[in-house]
């Protein structure tokens, strides 16, 4: 089918116009539907460069042509410091709030004059809950010549990419607490190893007098299996016979069958660890007496919904149950819930300086993200604090080497909401401690001091 030239041009223009129209239309509608403040970032100029990886294809970000010869040596140039991170944003888990927490911190720092007079720029990348995208993001950060990676949060991909970054000489500060972060001299975690969460959950179960719990864990995140095994072995060692292990996916929508199984069956772990040691009698409605749940914040909601539908209210013991906006939907489902936190809970420490700064800064720069704060944003904020401290100490001679030197030299660093952090040379594991918080329907209260392993 051949058409006149003019018709062809007309069709192309029509196509372009429609696409532009769709784009503008979507932007307009979006400005009505987004909570205020997520769109514009005025001061501090931190949002600088962003790079979203492509949807289904994890293409990496194209750097500017010829940017190999960057003017800086590792992220510092004249008046600017470049740091970065990658986050699982697209997909079942949304870690954009962790990114914005770090950005808010840096914007506040910039407003106060920067670090030794230098403004901080934060580059970020979306790793889309996918290991290949995480790798592409790591490469992007390397190509952007960042001084350090601060506050990255990518449950699926960050464990693998720690090495990618450190082999390129880039220190990694913060993170979720995946195993690789505790094995590398250039990795500086701020919170407890997830392995320790397993131990702490089991010990807390013993302290609470849990007799026959059921266990539910995320099964599709690669490094969770050793944590799960650790938890189960510790439960066995603590003399607690659990009844069932359910493995779920972060994308699982309905927990009806999972709840039913926890009430009735006898699955063992597929990732290793002690086997279930107890079978609840069919007539005993109070067995299992607790559910030990190691899930992401969004999955807790679905679990609770299914438990409420089944009119089943065992105690719940987990970690990170206190995400504001998801919790709004728990309401009556929290009867006897316990959550492990590695930092002081912001719920009942509103007078704490760090808590006030944290809440206030995020509210100021990213009010739309305020409701999404949780323990993982506390990780990110602490990472930002640690970075800023070490970078300040390095003075005007800031480079990757001097930064690492200062990080290693940090001893007894007071974050204000955790135990003092000390690093030192070699692999780091500065934070072995948790507090326990509980909620019986009227809010979260801290129920212990620092419990360290």
């Amino acid at each position, binding site marked *: 089918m*051949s058409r006149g030239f003019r018709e062809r041009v007309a069709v192309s223009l029509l196509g372009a116009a429609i696409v532009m129209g769709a784009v503008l239309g979507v932007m307009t509608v979006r400005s009505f539907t987004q909570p205020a403040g997520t769109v514009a970032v005025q001061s501090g100029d931190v949002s600088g460069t962003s790079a979203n990886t492509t949807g289904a294809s994890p293409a990496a970000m194209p750097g500017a042509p010829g940017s190999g010869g960057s003017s800086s040596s590792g992220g510092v140039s004249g008046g600017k410091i470049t740091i970065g991170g990658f986050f699982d944003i697209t997909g079942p888990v949304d870690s954009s709030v962790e990114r914005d927490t770090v950005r808010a911190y840096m914007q506040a720092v910039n407003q106060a004059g920067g670090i030794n007079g230098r403004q901080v720029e934060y580059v970020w990348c979306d790793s889309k809950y996918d290991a*290949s995208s995480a790798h592409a993001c790591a490469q992007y950060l*390397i*190509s952007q010549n960042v001084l350090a990676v601060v506050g990255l949060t990518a449950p699926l991909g960050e464990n*693998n990419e720690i090495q990618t970054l450190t082999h390129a000489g880039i220190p990694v500060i913060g993170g979720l607490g995946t195993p690789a972060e505790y094995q590398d001299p250039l990795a500086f975690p701020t919170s407890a190893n997830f392995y320790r969460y397993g131990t702490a959950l089991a010990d807390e179960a013993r302290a609470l007098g849990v007799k026959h719990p059921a266990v539910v864990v995320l099964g599709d995140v690669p490094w969770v299996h050793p944590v799960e095994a650790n938890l189960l072995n510790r439960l066995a060692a603590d003399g607690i016979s659990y009844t069932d292990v359910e493995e779920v996916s972060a994308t699982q929508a309905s927990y009806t069958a999972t709840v039913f199984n926890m009430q009735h069956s006898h699955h063992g772990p597929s990732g290793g660890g002690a086997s279930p040691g107890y079978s609840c009698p069919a007539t005993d409605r109070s067995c299992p007496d607790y559910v030990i749940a190691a899930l992401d914040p969004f999955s807790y909601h679905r679990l609770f919904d299914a438990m409420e539908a089944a009119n089943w209210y065992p105690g719940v013991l987990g970690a990170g149950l206190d995400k504001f906006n998801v919790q709004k939907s728990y309401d009556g489902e929290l009867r006897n819930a316990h959550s492990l936190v590695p930092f002081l809970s912001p719920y009942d420490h509103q007078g704490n300086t760090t808590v006030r700064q944290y809440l206030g800064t995020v509210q100021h720069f990213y009010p739309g993200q305020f409701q999404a704060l949780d323990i993982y944003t506390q990780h990110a904020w602490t990472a930002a604090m640690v970075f800023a401290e070490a970078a300040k100490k390095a003075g005007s001679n800031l480079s990757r080497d001097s930064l690492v030197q200062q990080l290693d030299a940090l001893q007894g660093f007071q974050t204000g909401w955790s135990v003092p952090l000390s690093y030192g040379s070699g692999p780091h594991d500065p934070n072995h401690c948790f507090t326990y918080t509980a909620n019986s329907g009227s809010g979260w209260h801290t129920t212990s001091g620092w419990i360290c392993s």
Partner: protein
Amino acid sequence: MTSTSKLMVRVALTLVAFTVLARIPAGFDVGFKFDAALAVIWAFGLLSLVLLTGYVGQISLCQATFAGVGAYGAGMMVSSFHADYLVAVVVGVAAAFALGVVVGLPALRLRGITLAIVTLGIALVFDRYVFQDHAFEWFTGGSGGWRVGEANVFGLRMDSSAHLMAAYVVLLALFCLVALLMVNLHDSGAGRRFRAIRDSELAAATMGVDLTRYKLLAFGLSAAIAGLGGAFYPLVAGSVSPQPFWLFTSLQFAAIAVLMGVRYVPAAALGGVFMAVVPDVLTRFGHGTFLGHQYDISYDWFSIAVGVLLIIQLIVLPDGVWGDIRNRVHHAWAAATAIGTRKVKVA
């Protein structure tokens, strides 16, 4: 033109294209090199559709699955069996070929919509079950997937960061080779049989074309092509995971192949570039302020554009972007070389 001279022209064009394209990413950084390599990998996927849908007329919505099988197969060979990468690629391609033949079996009885439904089902099953379930961990390497460090292919050292360029060049060379073979296939005996099947299966059968053999062959070859691209994915990206090969990639393949022109080989190359490079250029340069609003172009914009463009193109330009360009060039050429000296107005 005689067939030999046609062949020589094609070979020459291919060589020229290869030389030009191979140099382009050299001046850019690793991110862009990755895009380039990915563009070739996706181009393989699109090429597989050119064969299957463009030449043989079989619709398939699971081409990314074949690529994924190639990727996981290669990854498994390297990580579990510590094989040489070339061996791994061969195994990946073979696995993809086998799966293609299996998928071709329902195609013997079904066509059109029903075939699309079946391939859709296969894409979903592989995406959600085979690539993600414990039962297949021996094949997928668990939820973390296989990690591939560096490899030595044809004596060239390549990996996913510092030596990405070598991987790209090898991929491009392979693509040019396969593209050349496909263009020749189009005119060959087998190619005529394929096209006969596309135009009318009934007529083809009455003319003596063995439908079973050729359909299965088509599916197998097509899967192998997609698998060839996929087999290099672990090397280029450093690891394999289900998401690049999920259902929506297969749908994108179908959309972009049709958009560019599913009957033409160069359309596959064009489509690959479109899929891998354009979104990144957009996200890289597409942020700033417009009318007081901060905006950030993300991949979603690109996806909207693909959807809209596909709709427009199907309504207006059934032969695809490349097809249309090609037709115009041919018309112009034919008109210019028309017998006699009259100038013919090109419609």
